[in-house]
């Protein structure tokens, strides 16, 4: 096709939705572009020092964390998912959803709780004393302990993705394998595990992104990672340039992970037995001894990832309730919920705009690029915070210099904080909206258009009423994520505003970790809603398939 025809087609297809889509994409990609552009300014004074003495440490710790966590989450996530999908044993039904609950415990809260469990006169010491061992303690404030708490909080990502795969798995493959003389367990390793690889890796990539994003747990356990390094460079050394350089390296690692995940999924359609309609309709009932073993094995991650930390938090809450529960705490709780509510609304609206502007736009290149808008979830909160702070500071300076305003109107305000959250959590809202809108037959909106209604009216009259469940899931998921978020909030929150996550972090940092229990429990209780919701969704999808 020659250039003139291409140009004519481009001119014909360019509509107002294309321009609005560009605007939305521009708004949500500013932080990433800022990091990219700022790299050209060169690093700060301490960069050489960091490269010589700390970078190796950051890199080594981050890689070790990734390796340890990957191992633990695969062991717990995949094996429990396989057991509950394939076998019948006591408590299986309860364990199926209990295994999702650790998702409601943010890693930093898990870290505080375990510091208490293993610490002086903690749960473990009390227990061992009763058993006759005096002063028994395990130091978990190191990289191994950090790997453990991160894994216990994050393994459900792998559990959920593997279980979704196993529930939709075809029995005929397994039956064929068994008929060829391969035992159930050998079949798992020879057949099911390789087939499930794309699903497992998809969950694992989410875990690794969260590991790289973590600040609260790593800083509390004193482990130097990229994220803690970025914080230190910005706040202790006062060198945003160095923080940006570290962010760029971290971004490259994250993009590497995304590419790796995309690469390993390239043959997904060949490896997933989607065509077979026969699902697990009857689970195998193993021998009595094995049934008990399976129940115990599946209970371990629930115990470690939810019950023990929650018990620790409850004990602390009982001890500190009268001190922590005051007007300030109530106002922080309210502030947290109001901020999460407003931001969730804004994020859901942005996600809707991104989804539908992209659909109404007719230029293919822009349609493909619209996915850039949801990249924020893969980018650690600390990087987004820096990417928002720099342009907002620059704009504020410009406004003051030109005497348009006399004080900062963006930097360290709720506007900048909400903007940061929107960039970070747009994907969380986008995905349920996209999947629920994809469930609507395309011919419904086509039909409305042929009947004379434009895009906007078609949206309000047809699509909006049909994606209400998607809207609700999007809202709840973003709400909870915002309530749990720590690094971005720590950097960007206005001085006079506080959230439950930040308050918990402040208590823990000020050697008052037991006081962090009440805000932590409130976060967990709120986060339990989507965990249960997610399980229902998973079962519904499995029965649909």
């Amino acid at each position: 096709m020659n250039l003139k025809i291409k140009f004519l087609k481009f001119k014909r297809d360019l509509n107002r939705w294309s321009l609005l889509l560009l605007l939305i994409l521009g708004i949500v990609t500013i932080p990433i572009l800022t990091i990219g552009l700022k790299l050209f300014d060169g690093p700060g004074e301490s960069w050489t020092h960091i490269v010589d003495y700390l970078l190796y440490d950051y890199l080594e710790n981050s890689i070790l964390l990734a390796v340890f966590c990957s191992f633990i989450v695969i062991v717990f996530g995949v094996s429990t998912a396989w057991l509950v999908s394939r076998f019948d044993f006591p408590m299986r039904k309860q364990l199926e959803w209990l295994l999702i609950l650790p998702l409601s415990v943010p890693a930093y809260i898990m870290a505080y709780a375990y510091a208490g469990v293993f610490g002086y006169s903690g749960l473990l010491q009390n227990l061992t004393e009763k058993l006759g061992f005096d002063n028994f303690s395990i130091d978990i404030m190191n990289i191994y302990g950090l790997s453990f708490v991160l894994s216990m909080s994050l393994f459900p990502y792998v559990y959920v993705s593997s279980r979704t795969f196993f529930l939709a798995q075809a029995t005929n493959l397994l039956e064929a394998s068994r008929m060829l003389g391969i035992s159930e367990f050998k079949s798992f390793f020879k057949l099911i595990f390789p087939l499930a690889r794309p699903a497992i890796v998809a969950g694992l990539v989410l875990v690794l992104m969260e590991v790289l994003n973590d600040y609260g747990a790593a800083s509390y356990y004193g482990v130097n990672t990229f994220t803690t390094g970025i914080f230190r460079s910005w706040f202790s050394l006062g060198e945003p340039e160095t923080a940006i350089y570290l962010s760029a390296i971290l971004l490259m690692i994250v993009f590497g992970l995304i590419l790796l995940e995309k690469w390993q999924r390239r043959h997904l359609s060949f490896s997933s037995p989607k065509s077979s309609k026969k699902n697990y309709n009857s689970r195998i009932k193993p021998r009595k001894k094995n049934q008990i073993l399976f129940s115990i094995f599946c209970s371990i991650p629930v115990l470690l990832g939810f019950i023990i930390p929650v018990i620790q938090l409850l004990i602390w809450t009982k001890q500190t309730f009268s001190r922590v529960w005051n007007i300030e705490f109530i106002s922080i709780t309210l502030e947290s919920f109001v901020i999460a509510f407003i931001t969730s609304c804004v994020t859901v609206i942005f996600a809707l705009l991104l989804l539908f502007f992209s659909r109404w736009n007719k230029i293919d290149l822009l349609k493909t690029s619209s996915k850039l808008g949801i990249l924020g979830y893969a980018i650690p909160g600390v990087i987004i915070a820096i990417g928002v702070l720099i342009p907002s500071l620059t704009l504020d300076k410009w406004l003051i210099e030109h005497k348009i305003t006399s004080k900062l109107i963006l930097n360290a305000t709720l506007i900048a904080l909400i903007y940061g959250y929107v960039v970070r959590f747009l994907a969380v809202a986008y995905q349920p909206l996209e999947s629920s809108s994809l469930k609507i037959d395309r011919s419904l909106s086509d039909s409305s258009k042929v009947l004379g209604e434009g895009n906007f009216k078609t949206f309000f009259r047809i699509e909006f009423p049909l994606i209400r469940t998607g809207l609700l899931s999007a809202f709840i998921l973003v709400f909870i994520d915002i309530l749990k978020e720590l690094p971005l909030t720590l950097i960007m929150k206005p001085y006079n505003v506080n959230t439950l996550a930040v308050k918990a972090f402040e208590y823990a940092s000020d050697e008052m970790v037991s006081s962090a229990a009440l805000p932590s429990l409130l976060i967990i209780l709120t986060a339990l809603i989507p965990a249960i919701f997610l399980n229902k969704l998973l079962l519904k999808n499995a029965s649909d398939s």
Partner: protein
Amino acid sequence: MQATLNIENLSKSFDQGKVKALDGVSFYVNKGDICAVVGESGSGKTTLIRLIAGLEELDEGEIHIEDKLVASIKKNIAPEKRDVGMVFQEYALFPHLSVLENVTYGIKKSKSKKEVALATLNLVGLEGYEKRYPHELSGGQQQRVALARALAPNPSVLILDEPFSNLDAMMRHKLRNDVFNIIKKTGVTAIFVTHDTQDALAVADEILILQNGRLVQKDEASALYKKPQSIYVASLFGNTIQLNKGLQTAFKCPLKEDCCHAIRNENITVNEDCDYVSEAEVLKRTFLGTHSQLLLKLDNGEHITVVTNEPVLGNTLKIGFNSKDVLAFEE
């Protein structure tokens, strides 16, 4: 007669030009006519009607509706402004709206909206169903609502995408006649896509055959059947046997070499009083209710399948066909 729909040199590709769905298609449909678009899966039928409706953008060519240019390389009028009605394959009834709300959806005149909708529901034989929801209707009733909804705004062109593919054979036959009687009554110009040639033969004024995105023939039903312009078109409308060299030798029928010849299965008879005759050995008899199917081995070893209503006795017989029934196409 004035053409309501005029398509000129229409082309459309997908996947960045790698898949050519339509290639230089030109035709017109006269006012009030029913035109069927027939072709195998992937022949470009659906792409063609989506382009006419404005649901896709063309790569080349022009589309005119009532002499108005609605799509070209420079212009693309939105579907809502094209004055086209469409009945979708799965009906696409809005699940959260009642039958009446579905039918009034596209009617612009605010005063007489309800009256027009009720009259259209009456036309399709669904009076009394206004308050029901789509899921409370049978497949045939949903089809009628979809038709009423498309007709209610009084479009210039009505498009029907595989309108009967979701119905069972009995229902299909009855509904097909009803639907096209209604369409004829309204006088709307209609274009409908089908892969079932029986539908096309039964109701279309003109049939348009697509093959690999190209228009291979457009004619009236009887002309298409009697004078197909290619073996592809011939085989779409009934079992056709290509008369290759072996069959020509067996039947002793020397035919022109620069042409491709074929004979319809039903024109081969168990009869020796034909222009071309061959001895055949019966290899297999299959009883199919109204007729039998015979797998035969000819003198020279060629195999052929014929159908017959006559009882066939013995293991050998004579079969033949007449020269007037031979179809000839240019290579």
